[in-house]
């Protein structure tokens, strides 16, 4: 496990050029993370960054399906045996189940198996129909027996909370930061963000939206945010070009195939990062109807087609 206090070099903190806020950086959930705290107090800012990094690492450790021997790993190796989970996991699984209902089965934490047969590496080819059908037989939240707090996952199936985890980490980190400071702050875990309030001068934080095909290089717009969670779904660099057809990396768990013609990316702003992330994912799953869906939700959003 990463050790926060013994390995302080995992976290860096620096003053912004205009000297109005401190920026702390660390890596978690396979993403660069940064925390901006508008304060003069270096120690205070450092303390917040350490706390938030610890929380991000805790959530990663607990829910990542890439870790061995954590809860998710144990569930995925339960071979059909009922497993009792703790309260935090219960809440997250309940949330996933509600999202499954709300999306009419399009958001499904058991759909991870599809990613094993679909590769979006350059030169990859789509799996054959037989493989897709075989894979679909191990997918479907409605086949899981979930009686909180006990989960019975049929043998051969697996769950993946990756579609919720990073946004959840942002919102939990925001709660911690709100407890620790009165100052204005921005939490950015690999593009999933939260802003608590306007800056000291009353102005919003300005957040750049990258061009999905040129992350970090080219921007398609700037968002002025005073409060809320922001999440983006879609990455134009992850697609599969095969025999003149373009397959997006958003997979439909009903068909086992990529969603047809989704936008290149969707960014949503709501009260929390979790909601923003879920609305952005739902929108992508709508394919060409993404805009119509988001308009019906009456939330600020940005679509890159």
């Amino acid at each position: 496990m990463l050790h926060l206090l013994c390995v302080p070099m995992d976290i860096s903190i620096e003053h912004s050029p205009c000297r109005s806020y401190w920026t702390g950086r660390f890596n978690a959930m396979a993403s660069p993370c940064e925390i901006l705290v508008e304060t003069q107090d270096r120690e205070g800012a450092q303390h917040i960054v350490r706390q938030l990094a610890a929380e991000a690492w805790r959530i990663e450790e607990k829910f990542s399906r890439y870790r061995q021997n954590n809860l998710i790993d144990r569930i995925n190796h339960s071979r059909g045996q009922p497993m009792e989970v703790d309260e935090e996991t219960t809440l997250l699984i309940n949330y996933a189940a509600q999202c499954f209902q709300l999306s009419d089965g399009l958001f499904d934490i058991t759909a991870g198996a599809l990613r094993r047969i679909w590769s979006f590496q350059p030169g990859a080819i789509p799996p054959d129909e037989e493989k897709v059908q075989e894979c679909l037989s191990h997918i479907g939240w409605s086949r899981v027996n979930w009686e909180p707090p006990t989960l019975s996952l049929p043998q051969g199936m697996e769950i993946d909370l990756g579609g919720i985890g990073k946004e959840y980490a942002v919102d939990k980190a925001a709660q911690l930061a709100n407890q620790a400071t009165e100052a204005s702050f921005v939490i950015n875990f690999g593009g999933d963000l939260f802003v608590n309030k306007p800056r000291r001068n009353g102005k919003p934080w300005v957040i750049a939206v990258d061009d999905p095909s040129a992350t970090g290089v080219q921007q398609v717009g700037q968002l002025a945010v005073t409060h809320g969670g922001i999440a983006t779904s879609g990455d134009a660099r992850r697609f599969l070009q095969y025999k003149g057809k373009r397959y997006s990396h958003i997979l439909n768990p009903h068909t086992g195939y990529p969603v047809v013609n989704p936008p290149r990316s969707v960014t949503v702003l709501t009260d929390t990062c979790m909601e923003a992330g879920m609305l952005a994912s739902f929108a992508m799953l709508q394919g060409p109807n993404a805009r119509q869906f988001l308009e019906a939700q009456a939330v600020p959003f940005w679509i890159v087609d």
Partner: protein
Amino acid sequence: MQLTGKKSIRAALAAATCTVLSQPLQASQNSDEWDVKSGLLYYSEADRVTVIAPTVSAGTTTESGDIFTLRAIYDSLTGASPNGATPTNTTQTFTSPSGESSYTTQAGDTPLRDLTDTRVVLGIDWESELSRLMRHTLTANISSERDYLSLGVSDTLQRDFHNRQTTVSAGIGLTMDTISPEGGTPVGLQLLTASSEAGGDEQKSSLDLLLGITRILNRHTLTQVNFSHTYSTGCLTDPYKILSMIDPTTGETVQNISGEFLYRHEKRPDTRTSDSLYWKLQHQLTQDVVYLSYRYFQDDWGIRSHTMDLKYRYELQSGNYLQPHYRYYQQTAADFYHHSLVDDGALPDYASADLRLGEMTGNTVGLKFGIPLSDGEFNIRFEKMVQTGESHPADAIGVQRNYDLYPTLDATIVQIGYRTVF
């Protein structure tokens, strides 16, 4: 399909999100981290004993969520403590239990016995979850002094109800003590001048039962009620406490033919059953927190006591806090408490002049100052405790009326605490 068309799912999603995020923040469960608390306690009674006790405890959470805490205390005690004899109008000489040394007390003074002792206490707590709503804590302790060895184990079971608004606890504890008094165990109520053989080691054991309920009344208020029952058996007598034999008319301490003063060893019943009821209320105002508690205690030795405790945590602008503390304590005397025994030929079944078993009232005032640190806290506490009893009881005889038969205990407590994460 719910998603298609213009239907908004936002409200339902917002509600679902709110539920997930409503869970209280988890403490970072890092199995490599040790939550270390250290402290230094200084307790000093005016003209009596002084105790200096460094304490340290370290707790860690394992991958499976179990919490282990190791504790250690080292006490060093020096000074003098009342031996039970009353002041009289002449110099009194006392011989140590081993017979090797003696000490004298001037006329009119409370006889005090010199004390030096060190005590080492080691303990371990193991807290683990049995199910999602049930956990238990197993505790083991060993405490060792020159003449005393105590071993204890206890287990407490806790179960949450009503969405974790209510917690019910049930506990059981066993303590086994071995007492090896300096110079052997004396025979109860025997004269010190009698040369009978003193016994060897003595045993004492106690059984504790606890039943408690903690309830969160609202976001700011928590209350707790505990009931505990203790049964002790074995040697409950203090081998070093004595009683003066008093002349029924003059009130002077009686002397034998050789001019030696007469004292008797104390003797207490060999069982004690006690019950106590404890109630606590904790309420958070906008920022500050008030802690109020009351305890009622009674035992079959005739002691009834009431303890009221009030603390107010005042949050300062700087992030530090100040916590004033007031405690009131009042107890009735044990049925067999006597400041001295009248030398009229009749002896009671049990007798003790231990001031701790007498009627008394205690008042404690204190102030604690705490500085929260990024990974812990530093605090310092200063307290003053005064215990008063019946200095001039109605049954004092003759010259006894001139003396203070329940000297006031005046203690100063200073404690420094430091908590951090390694």
